[in-house]
């Protein structure tokens, strides 16, 4: 029951955030169509990531979105700096190869970051564990040196 409730709450939250995104998009479409076009085209990789990433927490989509948005944000600001925002200027700006490269490249960097980070963390943890094992072995050797074989026998005996 509680599980069902939890699932329902999560689903509700997700539906709400999805709805709020759609509502924001509709509002943006109605109020600032050039910005909407720029965002829609620029954030295409992020949208794809959100669609395909079904993992809990959607970390990959978040990675891609973060850097993808960083790539799109300068062009949004550039668009806002023009006094008369038109669909034409927006499409002209966005379909420049450099602009698309920056936006999609940034998304790609996000994806690479997502791929590269776990091995790095794993290496750090392994190195730390090895250092600890080495410290402990040194300590054990010191104890055997002081107490002799009887220590091992006693440990074995108490272990049995």
């Amino acid at each position, binding site marked *: 029951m509680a599980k069902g409730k939890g699932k329902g709450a999560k689903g509700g939250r997700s539906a709400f955030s999805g709805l709020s995104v759609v509502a924001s998009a509709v509002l943006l479409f109605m109020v600032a169509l050039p910005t909407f076009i720029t965002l829609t085209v620029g954030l295409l990789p992020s949208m794809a990531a959100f669609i395909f990433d079904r993992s809990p*927490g959607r*970390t*990959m989509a*978040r*990675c*891609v*979105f*973060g*850097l993808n*948005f*960083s790539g799109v*944000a*300068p062009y949004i*600001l550039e668009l*806002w*700096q023009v006094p008369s925002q038109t669909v034409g200027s927006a499409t002209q700006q966005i379909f420049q190869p450099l602009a698309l490269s920056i936006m999609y490249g940034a998304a790609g960097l*996000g994806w690479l*970051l*997502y791929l*590269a*980070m*776990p*091995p*790095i*963390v*794993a290496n*750090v*943890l*392994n190195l730390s*564990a090895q250092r*600890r*094992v080495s410290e*402990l*072995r040194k*300590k*054990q050797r010191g*104890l*055997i*040196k*002081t*107490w*002799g074989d*009887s*220590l091992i026998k*006693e*440990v074995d005996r*108490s*272990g049995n």
Partner: protein
Amino acid sequence: MAEQAEDQEQDVSNGAATESVMDAPGGGAPAPAESEVPSEEEVEVSTGGKSVEIGNFRVFMDLRMPEFDMGHCKAYSADNLRRDEGSAFAIVSDPVLPTRQDHINFLTGMHMAGQIDLLDYEIAYWPPFGRRTMVLFYEKPAGGKVSAKDNKKLPIDEHDIATVVVEPLMSVIQAFGEKGLAHRNIRADNLFFADASREKVVLGDCASGPPGYDQPLVYETTARMSAEPAGRGSGTTEDDFYALGMTLAELGIGRLPLKKLSDQEVMDLKLSKGSFQAIASQEKLPLVLIEPVRGLLCDDPEERWGLAELNAWLDGRRTKPVQANTEKRAARSQNLAGRDYYTVRALAQGIATNWVTALVPLRDSTVEIWLRRGLGDNDRAKAMSDAMRQLQWAGTDKRSAEDVLIARSILILDPSGPIRFKGFSAMIDGLGFMLSYDVQHGRGPQRFADVIVRDIPSFWFARQEGYSPEVQKHQQLYKNLRYYIQQQSAGYGYERCLYATVRNQHCLSPLVEQEYVVDIGELMPALEKAAETASEESWPVDRHIAAFIATRLEDDVEGQLMAMQNPSDEVEYSRAIISMLAIVQWRHGPDNLQNLSHWVSRLMEPAIKVFHSKARRERVETEIPKLAKRGNLVELYNLINDEQERRKDQSEFVDAVAEYSEAESEVFDLESSGPARLEMAEKVGQQAAAFASTMIALLTVSALFLMYIF
């Protein structure tokens, strides 16, 4: 004579002394048929003028004095080196027969009318034996032996016997009785004239062997005569009075009464007719001695003459009449192995000698019916029936139960007699001496152990009527014996029984047996000597030494004996042995025992293991040789038994074990958590990447926003 011997004196320390043997340990024992008794010719070989100094005396080994031989012990001429007047002789005890400590202590240095003076005693090396033994020094009686062998002439006039013999012997019996002792060696063969005028006699030795061991069978009461010579028991004053009666009979007759009869015939005759009738029917007693002999040979100890009756007789007063034979005779006989028995005591002896065939009449209740109908003794018949009933409850060991039934039946028939069990026959107060004899004459302790394990003495105690402090004392001792024999470990077993029951038993450990260690104070010097040749693997404490120490030492060593129960625990075992030896040295010295200390130090390796710390062990190992050189076992023991240091070592060791185990466990966790770590790394890495990406986005937007504003 002394001068003559002086001229012939040689150094006895050379090997030649042991070659010409006059006797051998156990050689003098006359009674047991299985002991190797050298003939008189063999023991009379001269050793060629040798003498040996023992304490304050010089003993001449080639100057035998056969007239002063006392039972199984040989007499030798001796000179008192500290005193000119008087002459002495030495009695060399048989090292394989225990002496009587209470008697030696009582008699040494004391003059008692009627008893030969025991001047001194020493434990010394006796070259003919090639080992140490106990030598007793007596004042030589001036008048010589009373009854010379093959001399049929009455040595003392029958009318003088009262003053010459009875009076001095009465005073001896009285003096011994006051000390709670019995002489147990009163016989005509052991009488000497105290002076040349032959007016008084003195009794000879009574301390050089087990009580009653040298007595001819006829001198033993009907209760004790069926016991083996070594197991006749310490006895009581009543037994001495009986022996006095027989002594008077022998002096009156001029030879040993019933000499022509075999031991078995003497026993049968005494059992069937009663002691006095047995003598009177076969021998011609002087008229004047009939009354005292009848009174003293009464088979009922309650009725037997004592000091009061003898005094009355000496004063010429009439004494109470004594029944000649107090044994109840059955109306019809009980047949056993082809012989007819009419009295219970005779039947008891018959059962003991026909152990296997006796079972049938006991099992089919023939004996019980005989007791009830033939003898009219319902009490005994009921006891017999109870014993039979217990046989029916016996478990799987039927054979053992049958043996117990026979032994109990004997005790029902003859409750004051010896404990008899499959050839073993010893009085309750002679169990220890019997065990000693068996162990030292090749029979081993098995017979004694069988008797104790099957709890036969308990039945003997149960059959005793009335209260007797002596019986109580024996009962208490027996409880301990049973406990000792049931324990298997060192310090208990038959060895402990032996030393607990025979005060003067020397330690029979192969390590020190030749040294004849009777006193605990002599043990350490003997072990010191043994250490010179001891093998490296052997321990200085074996079962005999452990039992000897446990019995003779004033201190309680039960803790050490407990630790010795498990020889596989080398640490505790070696510590217990070192501790035991250290206590003995601390109590009795000597201060320097270098050889023994080196021996012990070689065996201390397991004890060093008591310390866990390598540094502590190394320190102890360096200390041991230094202390061993000083010959002090107490210091050696203290080195491994520093309680504070041990506790500290133990506590630190426990901490170290815990620390090691913790580290091991952590290492195990770290080494076995690889896949889990990878999983975690992936999760954390992804989250970190998402976080970093979000932060980059925030920073970019913030920066652009700021740029837009400014």
